[in-house]
């Protein structure tokens, strides 16, 4: 199982003299869930975008053992799907039409719609529990349903590797859990390789096999959640004092920022 699905060799991203990422090496294993974490502006989304070839970069990106420079945009799109943060659909577009567009990389100019397309769209809608919403315009859905519709589009693309940029941001806790459980289900039942940028450290600890912490365009820590999510790493990467305890439910590391509650601080304030 330890075969590289997606990797980077000497990756450089950014303008000359202002490199966001300057010489990064990475190998992401097939069938694993990897979470990339880090402070705002550390280059974690940049890394995801460069890996997906949406952002031009120097160095080599390897996908399924092949240099992506030798693959066409369409060939890459058949192997790797990527969901940007907060994508926008034109007003009035239905869920079914959106998900059907996930089939574009598989369609030929003349042969527009096949049985395989139909089956892929149906399966994507079923997996995301969006079948009932197929005829509804995206803009009439709640934020959580909308995110699931976009994930369904990426699923309809039927790629082995799925990249997601902050898929849970702006969602309520119920939809956050639903989206992440869906990704785990995809990983377990369909063997998809999943790479996601996450802001919530506890989600990274809970849902990922491997956590990569980035700081100023470099990999500051890389390993299992237990290895990476520690008080020392959090201090180094986020500059934050935090306690890390074992989550009583799963045993995964749980981050508790060591800030002082307002009531305690008010009590400590010298009275005038």
């Amino acid at each position, binding site marked *: 199982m330890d075969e590289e699905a997606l990797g980077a060799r000497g990756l450089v991203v950014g303008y000359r003299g202002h490199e966001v990422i300057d010489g990064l090496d990475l190998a992401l294993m097939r069938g694993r869930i990897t979470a990339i974490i880090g402070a705002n502006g550390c280059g974690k989304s940049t890394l995801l975008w460069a890996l*997906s*070839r949406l952002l031009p970069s120097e160095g080599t990106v390897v996908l399924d053992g092949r240099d992506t420079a030798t693959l066409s945009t369409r060939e890459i*799109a*058949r192997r790797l799907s990527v*969901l*940007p943060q907060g994508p926008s659909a*034109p*007003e009035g577009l*239905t869920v079914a039409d959106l998900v059907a567009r996930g089939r574009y990389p598989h369609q030929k*100019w003349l042969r527009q719609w096949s049985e395989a397309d139909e089956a892929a769209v149906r399966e994507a809608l079923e997996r995301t529990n969006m079948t009932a919403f197929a005829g509804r315009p995206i803009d009439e859905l709640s934020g959580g349903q909308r995110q699931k519709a976009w994930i369904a589009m990426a699923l309809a693309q039927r790629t082995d590797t799925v990249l997601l940029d902050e898929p849970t941001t702006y969602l309520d806790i119920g939809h956050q859990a639903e989206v992440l459980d869906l990704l785990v289900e995809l990983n377990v039942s369909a063997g998809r390789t999943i790479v996601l940028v996450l802001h919530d450290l506890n989600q990274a600890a809970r849902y990922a096999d491997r956590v990569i912490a980035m700081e100023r365009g470099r990999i500051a820590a890389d390993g299992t959640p237990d290895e990476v999510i520690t008080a020392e790493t959090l201090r180094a990467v986020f500059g934050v004092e935090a306690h890390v305890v074992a989550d009583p439910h799963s045993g995964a590391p749980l981050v508790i920022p060591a800030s002082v509650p307002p009531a305690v601080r008010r009590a400590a304030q010298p009275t005038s």
Partner: protein
Amino acid sequence: MPSRGSATTAVSGLVALAIAVGVVAMLSIGVGSRFIPPDSVLSALFSPGGGFYDNVIWELRIPRTVAGLVIGAALGLSGAVMQGLTRNPIADPGILGVHAGAAFGVVVAIYVFGLLDFRAHVGFAFAGAALVSAAVWLVGSRGRDGATPVKLALAGAAISAFIGSATSLVLYADSTAFDEFRFWSVGSLAGAKADLLLAAAPFLAGGALLAFGVIRGLNALSMGADVARSLGQRVRLVRGAAALAVVLLSGTAVAAVGPIGFVGLTVPHVARALAGPDHRRVLPYSALLGPLVLLGADIVGRVVAIPSEVQVGAITAAVGAPVFIWFVRRRTVREL
């Protein structure tokens, strides 16, 4: 609930529009400073020769009607492609500098070459439209991300203003040019003749083919350049082909009949309100709504001031502006 997007609804909508276009085309042959009864129209169409009105019908009304059909379709299509390309619901081909370039071409024909026959203006108008939009494209597509909507709009506004001021300079300096230009600057279908339409046909056909060829690309672009790329679309290629389609369609239209405003801007809005945002439906709907609106406006222009005529460009502007405002106020303008 009824799905706005179902394929059968879309097809029946297209059939209804096609019938409406046919009716308006018949009206366009019959209505004018001289009214021709429907039975004479039909006999001239299907068994020509000998009828009292055959000459008027075949020499004037039919070329004018065909011009309304193809130019209307070209304006509707180019507007829909332009709005899809720029993801801007108030974009029209003017953004690419098509109109400014065509006007400048006509002024050059009159002022520099002393050509007063309006047929000689056609080639100059098209060359001007093509050159100026190529310049807009070159400036707007510089840089890493290529021709983004914002860069295109800025380049188009700047270059159009520059070319526009050059046009004005000549017109104020030369009164002959000014007089000639006045007639061109309000679009009219009245001068359309069969040979002109035949010359325009390959450009319009090429533009229409390109437009329908980039439907999938436009659909992908409507979700942003990044999503389009992640779906395997070559974004630069799609944008280039879409822009070329716009220039071929609207450049030919403006060269053949002069500038006609509001059709390219308004028609795609009506198409989206009727058929949703998918370009598989927006483009055919626009291609039928365009002739419906243009021929309708032309017929109105022929009868409002009998015995003289009001040029169709004046009618589309006079009617189009209030209709567009009404549309915007009803919030049927869809975000792209």
